[in-house]
């Protein structure tokens, strides 16, 4: 039985081949994992600052928040627009379009394969973090861990759909990846990667809640760190963003493919 062009065998082959492919690039992926250290730099600034008391994250809660933010970011990194742009430019997209499988699934599998390759490096960085800050060590409960995992996957889904939306604009414009750069800037500042949302002035915070960004880092990170969060509101907002983005991506994709004329054709 096929659901969205997928069955168990296709899933296994896709994931297996993409994982093997990503393992070839493990040195590169390790460096990407290392280049995500910004939350730790911000942690060192926040922990010594006068403004710390306003965060509502006392003692080790702040360390745990920023480690969780790092981990959530590692498993929700999305680069589909760059991969897609290259495939469209080099004409690799044409054979993908002929296959009885939505090409986006291929990119989903590539991202999952990359996350699996990233796992040991991210775990190593977490171990180093706990070696430096042993008092911050914690293990989430099984339930908490599963919820955090789900929230991270939902964050990945939102980021993936959002970037796929930008990627489908490649069918119309060559400047699509510039758009990705522009949306990355508010993401960095509003997602909670550099400062927990509780640090924001109330007005900015209320306004940020209406963007998808806080649900990409702040919400999953708080779940993972075991902070008290409104689970229903958080997951509800994540689901709502997926429900908005998914049909948009599919519609734009169909319109785009109709416009697509392969390179060199």
């Amino acid at each position, binding site marked *: 039985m096929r659901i969205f062009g997928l069955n168990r065998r296709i899933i296994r082959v896709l994931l297996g081949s993409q994982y093997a492919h990503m393992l070839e*690039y493990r*040195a*590169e992926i390790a*460096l*990407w994992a*290392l*280049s*995500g*250290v*910004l939350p730790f*730099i911000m942690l*060192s*600034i926040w*922990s*010594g*600052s*006068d*403004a710390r008391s*306003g965060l509502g994250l006392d003692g080790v809660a702040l360390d745990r928040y920023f480690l969780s933010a790092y981990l959530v970011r590692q498993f929700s990194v999305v680069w589909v627009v760059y991969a897609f742009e290259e495939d469209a430019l080099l004409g690799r997209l044409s054979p993908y379009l002929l296959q009885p499988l939505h090409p986006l699934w291929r990119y989903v599998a590539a991202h999952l394969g990359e996350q699996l390759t990233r796992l040991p490096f991210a775990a190593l960085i977490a171990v180093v973090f706990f070696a430096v800050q042993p008092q911050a060590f914690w293990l989430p409960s099984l339930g908490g861990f599963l919820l955090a995992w789900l929230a991270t996957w939902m964050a990945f889904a939102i980021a993936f759909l959002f970037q796929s939306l930008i990627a489908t604009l490649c069918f119309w414009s060559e*400047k699509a990846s*510039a758009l990705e*750069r*522009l949306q990355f*800037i*508010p993401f*960095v*500042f509003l997602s909670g990667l*550099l*400062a927990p949302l509780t*640090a*924001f002035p109330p007005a*900015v915070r209320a306004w940020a809640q209406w963007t998808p960004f806080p649900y990409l880092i702040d919400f999953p990170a708080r779940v993972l760190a075991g902070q008290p969060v409104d689970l229903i509101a958080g997951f509800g907002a994540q689901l709502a963003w997926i429900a908005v983005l998914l049909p948009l991506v599919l519609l734009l994709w169909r319109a785009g493919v109709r416009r697509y004329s392969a390179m060199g054709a």
Partner: protein
Amino acid sequence: MGRYWRTLRRFWSTALAVQLEYQANVLIELLAVAMSLSGSLFLLSLFYGPDQTLGGWSWAQALMVQGLYTVFDGMASTWLRPNLGAIVTHVREGTLDFVLLKPIDSQFWLSLRTLSPAGLPEIGLGLALLAWGSLQAGVVLTLPTLLMVLVMLLAGGLILYSLWFLIAATSIWFVKTWNATEVLRALLASGRYPLNAYPPALRLLFTVVLPVAFLTTVPAQVLLGAAGAPMLLAGLGLAVVFFAAARSFWLFALRFYTSASS
């Protein structure tokens, strides 16, 4: 020497001519710079409330550090990223052969071949922020301080270039680690904040191992009249050491270059 100067003028005028073909990029770049600078200022403002300081630095003083960081970031996107980012492509595709065969120093060619004017507005905004912060912090600009700051900026630029070049040069061995400079960039982001805002262990790291301190904090201290001659000499010394290291490492690395597909 004159030959190098003439070559450099040719390099940069052709780079400018190429960039003028893509005028929309300048607009996008301008928007990106404006957005990320306002984001950085917003983030910085989160650390300041009534009588709060960041590592003993006032808001105006921290703005000076932020401005200096923006200047160096602009320098990286104008000069370092377009040039040094291409080294790995040359290694992978074997076009480094052509560079090595040219009757001109290969490090000179690789380091100064092109220029991306899209980063210039960032340098301008950074300088403006530095000037505004200095004015607010009550800096009295005298000729000696101005000269000292310029020397420190040059030293900082040289340190940044040498670090970046050192890492880019390792691509002679490890072609696959082309993104190693991304790690450097992430760590350089620590230069956005005054050194005193960090815990002591990181302060040592950012002064000696990865001398980000000499890029932003020390020049700001010079302007504020808080850095003495020893600090200046240390900065200059580090710049010379890092440049010499980058130069000898490049000559060493070339002995291992075997060209592509051989």
